[in-house]
């Protein structure tokens, strides 16, 4: 296995970042961390999680889809996509990487393929960093993610153990990255990594929501859960903002908007949230009248509809961002517990 000393990691960033765009978690002035492009002097954040998930790289918040330009009686259709250059994302967590699998299932593995998403996805190399200090709000193990392996859907796995970063390539893109980085890396034995994995596994096991019971979320009980009385209580404090959806690594709904320009139309797509009151607004009617229907939709989608359509895979990865950021502290863990404790399911 290849490694680099912790205090030399900046030289690796320089080696990679000078050749292609490199993104990594960086502390911002608000006391939190977000992904930022590497520049000389950029320091890797020590925080466990970024506020926004890593989905932004492949599914940005706003994306220019197409332009229609008019000149006289001619209409020109302009595809704004330029070939995205290869880029590297360093230091996301296993949960974020699993989030890509959830989005891939819909945007890559179903027809029609989302060519905008695909284009970015193909050009990005994902380096997953193991979580040495999982937080009390983490519950990835509930969804079968092993934070110690730093593996799901990542091109390279990385561990910080004993003062060194260790790298292991999982895919061709990952091998190419390691090849590029080789001059900065040195060979090392894997004993420290094995100890690190064991340590993380033990810590994860002790987390309060390490093993939430999901046995009640069976397709056959869908209507029972849908009609349960728990949704009144779940939605009661909800203020109807989009925080949970926008920090979520698996929320992938979008809206398409046209903007008039001086000589035509610019069409963009932007994130949308099922928590918003106009999410299902149609010309004549909005079938989700109250916040109850909207909240229910979000949690039913994560825990029922998505797994029913995708071989039982839940579209929650247990990253805990909604647990940390909801203004009223209502979150998917509380919903799972409410379903388990309810007597009408």
């Amino acid at each position: 296995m290849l490694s680099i000393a912790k205090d030399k990691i900046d030289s690796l960033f320089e080696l990679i970042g000078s050749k292609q765009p490199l993104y990594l978690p960086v502390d911002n002035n608000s006391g939190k961390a977000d992904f930022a492009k590497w520049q000389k002097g950029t320091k890797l954040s020590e925080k466990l999680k970024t506020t926004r998930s890593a989905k932004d790289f492949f599914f940005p918040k706003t994306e220019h889809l197409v332009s229609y330009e008019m000149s006289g009686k001619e209409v020109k259709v302009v595809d704004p996509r330029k070939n995205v250059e290869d880029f590297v994302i360093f230091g996301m967590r296993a949960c974020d990487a699993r989030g890509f699998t959830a989005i891939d299932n819909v945007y890559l593995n179903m027809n029609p393929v989302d060519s905008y998403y695909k284009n970015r996805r193909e050009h990005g190399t994902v380096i997953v960093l193991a979580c040495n200090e999982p937080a009390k709000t983490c519950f990835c193990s509930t969804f079968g993610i092993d934070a110690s392996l730093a593996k799901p859907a990542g091109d390279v796995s990385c561990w910080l153990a004993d003062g060194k970063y260790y790298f292991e390539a999982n895919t061709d893109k990952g091998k190419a990255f390691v090849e590029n980085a080789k001059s900065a890396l040195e060979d090392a034995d894997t004993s420290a990594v094995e100890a690190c994995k064991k340590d993380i596994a033990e810590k994860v096991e002790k987390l309060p929501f390490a093993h939430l019971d999901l046995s009640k979320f069976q397709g056959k009980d869908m209507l029972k859960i849908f009609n349960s009385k728990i949704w009144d209580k779940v939605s009661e404090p909800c203020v109807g903002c989009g925080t949970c959806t926008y920090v979520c690594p698996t929320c992938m709904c979008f809206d398409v908007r046209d903007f008039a320009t001086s000589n035509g139309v610019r069409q963009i797509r932007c994130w949308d949230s099922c928590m918003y009151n106009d999410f299902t607004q149609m010309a004549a009617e909005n079938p989700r009248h109250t916040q109850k229907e909207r909240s229910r939709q979000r949690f039913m989608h994560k825990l029922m509809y998505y797994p029913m359509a995708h071989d039982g895979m839940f579209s929650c990865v247990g990253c805990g961002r909604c647990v940390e950021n909801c203004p009223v502290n209502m979150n998917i863990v509380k919903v799972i517990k409410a379903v388990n404790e309810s007597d009408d399911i």
Partner: protein
Amino acid sequence: MQDKLIARAKELLSEGKVQKVVGWKKGLFDDDITPAVFTTAEELDKDFVFNKYCKANLSKYLVGITRNIEIAKSTARMNNTMAKQRDPNAQDKPIPSEVVLVFLKPSDTYSFTQLLKESRITRDDVYAVGVPCQDTVDGGDVCGNCAGKKPVSCDEYIGVDPEAVVAPNTARMEEVAKIEAMSVNERYEFWRNEFSRCIRCNACRNVCPACTCEKCVFDNNALYTTQKVAETSFEESLFHIIRAWHVAGRCTDCGECSRVCPQNIPLYLLNRKYIKDINEIYGDYQAGADMESKPAMLRFQEDDPETTIVYDRSKDGGNE
């Protein structure tokens, strides 16, 4: 304090004075408390908490709750009228009446009063109990240097004295003054940096007790300004500035916008800037401090100062 509140809530429930209690509900940890409605003594015993993590301002929930109570009343009245038209001897069905108990911290009572003034809450449907702040230490500047510790408009007070004389907080505008002291470019960079983190989740707007429009201008699909699109990075700034303008003179400085922001953008500083300006130009004014006074933005006096850019320039012979 928590036991006192539970005991009083139970008392009021059993006396029939209130039918519902709006309070704070225990979470999974100590610090993830959720606003909730309680209807029985058992529920209160099981889940009601009151501690330093009970930061949520509950006043805005009263808008929806009292509206539902009033809708039920008017529906019943209408049914009675219609029944009488069909049969003049029909007996009137009883009009359902409900009163909801709410616990409000001093700062929250200003939001409550402001909502009453704007007729967004029906006063008769609410039994308000003033309670003290439990801890403002980790609230930082927004909460630590709050608008006031003197509660108003409640039916009763537990642990706080509405008559107490509280010295004005002189540190409240210090952060605003710091930003005012910046050069134009520095200030522009400061806010561009802060707003660059915005994800437009609308948490600040949706939690704000001063934002109670039935249809927000940013939710209007016919406009180019709908809630989820930030077509340009400048639009994010516009959203926050327009929002701050819209609540100017009505914002009570409860700080909820900053508390809920997932990106820790110090939005309260925008509002405090407007409060500071209003205080300096039109005289000290605290939104929601009483039921009578009119905010500067809603009254006109002939001797009002005309502090517009145009006016300032004209004094100077039109030169900048």
